[in-house]
């Protein structure tokens, strides 16, 4: 069973990102689970969501305390996200405009803000970074690009073009930082 935790700020789309990843698992022939942690919701406050993927039935219903992957939606959250728990060899996927290395952990970096803005995916509140991050995480987890695209098309039938563009760009540009 693969376990992943998303650490973000309220309003960044962590819940939708968790749902997309669980759906991609099912699309990829596995079982998937998205378990967002619902607090007393406040825009801008730290939020988290658990995602699990497994070839067999998922029985876990706890938040991911020691995930194999941590997705950090903002550079400001790196320390908090890692100290919340990750396996010793766990991988970190960061949204940041430049390369950021996380001590001892294999790290992938993506400028999700820039990709989302470039694709026109933003509102007055900011860019929809969950879409490029979805593409990036699929790449890191070796989920085929066509499965990633099918998941987006299933989620937003007939209106997913900009989403597909942004997620595809992220899929192909997310960069592994040498440790």
């Amino acid at each position, binding site marked *: 069973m693969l376990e992943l935790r998303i650490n973000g700020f309220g309003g960044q789309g962590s819940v939708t990102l*968790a*749902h997309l990843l*669980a*759906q991609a698992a*099912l699309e990829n022939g596995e*079982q*998937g*689970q*998205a*378990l*967002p*942690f*619902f607090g*007393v919701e406040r825009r801008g406050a730290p939020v988290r969501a658990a995602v699990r993927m497994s070839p067999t039935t*998922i*029985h*876990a*219903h*706890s*938040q991911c*305390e*020691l995930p194999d992957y941590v997705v950090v939606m903002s550079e400001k959250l790196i320390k908090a996200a890692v100290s919340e728990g990750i396996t010793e060899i766990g991988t970190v996927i960061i949204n940041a405009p430049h390369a950021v290395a996380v001590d001892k952990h294999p790290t992938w970096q993506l400028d999700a803000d820039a990709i989302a803005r470039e694709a026109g995916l933003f509102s007055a509140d900011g860019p929809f970074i969950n879409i490029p991050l979805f593409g990036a995480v699929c790449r890191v987890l070796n989920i085929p690009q066509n499965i990633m695209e099918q998941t987006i098309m299933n989620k937003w039938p007939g209106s997913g073009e900009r989403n597909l563009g942004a997620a595809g760009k992220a899929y192909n540009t997310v960069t592994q930082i040498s440790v």
Partner: protein
Amino acid sequence: MKAAQVIMDTGAHAAALAVKSARVDVVPGYPITPQTSIMEAVAAMVENGELNARFIPVEGEHSAMAAAVAASAAGARVFTATSANGLLYMHEVLHMASGGRLPVVMCNVNRGIFAPWTLWADHQDSFAQRDTGWIQYHCSSNQEVFNTILQAFRVAEQINIPIMVNFDGFAISHCLMPLTLPPQEDIDRFLPPHEPKWRLDPAHPSSFSNVTNAAEYAPFRQMLSDDIMASIPLVKQAAQEYKDITGMWDGDTIDTYLLEDAEVVAFAVNSMAAELRLSIDILREQGIKAGLLRPRLYLPFPAEDIINALPQNAQVMVLDRNYNFGHPGGILASELKSVLFGRRNDITVKNRVMGIGGIDLPRRFMAAEIRAMMDE
């Protein structure tokens, strides 16, 4: 024959989809977190014509259950849902549903009780309704929520007793997972239309639940007590026939995992019992012969099935997500000890309270707790 369909959805929506598949007639509803997503989904189904039912928005849970009682007395198949203090507010009317022998089915999405306020799961709310005369299931997965609502309607209507289907807030209600939807014709075969033996009918005026003398009241109460016990074979039959038709099985009165040769048995309900399977795997890797016994039925408490299933000389670790105020531990431990007394003197029962107000219960934590309890 049509094949089953697999979708991704939350536990709350699994409940709403079961309500639709059960072809429910009347749904009185009042919102409360974390149950609200069930009522929102059912209201939307009624609005867009997917479910041919009457949705009755009311001003509180006391009225929601009163409307459910009235609609059920009129012969309708009735569903409602609530959580925590909403369930407590219904308490008086719950007795009217069971005493009136009305087969209402209700989801209670478990949430800790005010005060102080909490949004997250523990099991104080449902266990506090122990003496209302309702049958109670507790579910540990999204799929089991769907399956159990259908089984509950069948059992309730066979024996004229209301049934509460409980599952954890957020950990199940807001957890997105694969859900298998059997073809509607299979569900219709499993759950035929509700044909009440009696109903309120303006064309044939009658009344019910009048003032009774003790000589009339006492037999009614005795019948309710007897029939609650008599529901056990019906619960088993419903689980078996549901499996025969859909291929899906969540256990009947109990569910077990690696129990046969177990020396240490974890005993718990709801989502923590699902996670406990992984704790059992951890303990087995450590060389401990661990197993799980999960009562799916809390009321009637499946005494005979528990007594028969527990291996010889087992240490039973009861993990209670509730308090038995006035006693040192939780309610499940107390129930278990009362059925084992004089019947299984070889069994040791140990107990811890954990996970109150939604405190996370990861597999490693529960495995460590069970190990620590072994040394007590």
